[in-house]
């Protein structure tokens, strides 16, 4: 978003952000008040620019008086960048340290918390399939955003990322080719629907909703980075409550639970790939 020299840069103050999140909470019940300010501010600036709004007050008015605009605003504001096999070494670690344990169970439950458009859901399903345990898995994929959930349920991703995903896949050193799992249809990589036949796509807001099931494995990677520490603590508790004893929690490469209030209820399985295990209730 390179600004032209003659274009005015809008600077947002903290109080304006609070005013906005308060207004949204009062009117719609969505709680953005505990999002990390730095990245939330950037999203707001992007929205202002997209709709040609000159101030937060203008945005607040539009949000309060146009519910349909608010729906769109939620889409714009939530982060939906994801990729297949992001951090190939993470998937290698899953295969070596987590999958063998899941494989011993007659059945197991997986939660992709904030799954976005589902690239990670398919990535894991491919691994489970290769290990012959996909049919034993009951998988939930949830997100705050209905539109991305619909996309995820289609198991189709734009071909523009094809080379990149193939590269990531090659780095996992998993057998065969990624192309074994998809065909090209209408400019999309259409993945085999068999991969998501055990997946339930469901609306869930980590900031607001409570736990709904118990899991053996939860992936919540690069989600909590958009939350402040207060909300992170709440979500860690939610995830902890959603895990069976000895269940696994996977975070993003640069996320940590060291400082979180319930850090002692987890042990580290792989510090580099941020895989943890619930050891205390």
């Amino acid at each position, binding site marked *: *978003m390179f600004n032209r020299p003659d274009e005015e840069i809008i600077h947002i103050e903290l109080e304006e952000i609070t005013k906005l999140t308060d207004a949204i909470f009062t009117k719609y019940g969505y709680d953005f008040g505990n999002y990390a*300010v730095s990245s939330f501010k*950037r999203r707001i600036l992007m929205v202002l620019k997209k709709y040609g709004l000159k101030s937060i007050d203008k945005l607040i008015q539009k949000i309060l008086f146009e519910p349909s605009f608010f729906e769109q605003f939620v889409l714009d504001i939530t982060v939906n960048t994801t990729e297949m096999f*992001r951090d190939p070494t993470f998937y290698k670690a899953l295969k070596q340290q987590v999958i063998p344990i899941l494989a011993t169970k007659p059945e197991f439950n997986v939660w992709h918390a904030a799954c976005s458009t589902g690239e990670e859901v398919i990535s894991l399903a491919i691994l489970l399939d290769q290990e012959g345990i996909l049919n034993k898995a009951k998988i939930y994929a949830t997100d705050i955003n209905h539109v991305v959930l619909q996309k995820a349920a289609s198991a189709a991703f734009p071909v523009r990322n094809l080379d990149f995903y193939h590269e990531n896949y090659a780095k996992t050193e998993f057998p065969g080719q990624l192309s074994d799992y998809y065909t090209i249809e209408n400019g999309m990589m259409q993945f085999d629907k068999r991969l998501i036949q055990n997946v339930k796509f469901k609306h869930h807001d980590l900031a607001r909703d409570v736990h709904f099931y118990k899991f053996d494995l939860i992936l919540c990677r690069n989600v909590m980075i*958009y939350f402040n520490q207060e909300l992170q603590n709440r979500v860690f508790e939610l995830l902890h409550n959603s895990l069976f004893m000895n269940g696994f929690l996977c975070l*993003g490469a640069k996320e*940590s639970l060291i400082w979180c209030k319930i850090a002692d209820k987890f042990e580290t399985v792989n510090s580099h790939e941020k895989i943890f295990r619930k050891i205390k209730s």
Partner: protein
Amino acid sequence: MNFESILKNKKFEAIVIGGSAGSFTVITQILAELPQPFVLPIFMCLHRLKDKREGFKEALEIKSKIKIEEPDDKTLIQQNIAYLAPANYHMLIENKKMISLATTELVQFSRPSIDVMFESAADVYRDKLLAILLSGANKDGADGMRTIKERGGFTIIQDLNTCSMITMPEAALKITHIDLQLKPNQIPDFLRTLNHLILNEVL
């Protein structure tokens, strides 16, 4: 150049450095010649390969006088550490105590992006921020420099004659006021003077 008179009445609390193609040797030199203890936190965003998580920090650390850290999300900011934006993440300054990371869209084809880091730092540190933009082959960092200037910060670019790629500092020069152009060997001098003045409580 008399850096002492330039730095008079400036109360810096943090330094941000951005660089891309051609900046590696310059940043290495800066880190190698930092005085110790260095009292201000340094945040560095250098364009890098997204899938190379290892090696870059280590390469910078070889000659560095201070510790270099690729922070996790919500890492507490400390003095005498240079924070390096990790591969495939944007690094943002959440507040004066804490760093946040993000995986949002590329900005100027980059993640980490210099604009993202500079703009978040400008919001937090306002007129207490010192920004240095080095050699580079794209326009990332220019918008960030403009925001820093508008928020009252101090802007330095690498002397264009010494850049192996001038696109980046030149883009900043075109859209905002640049306070100083410094040659690579002048930057450590500038930082030494700054550190000395702070330690002696002149600033």
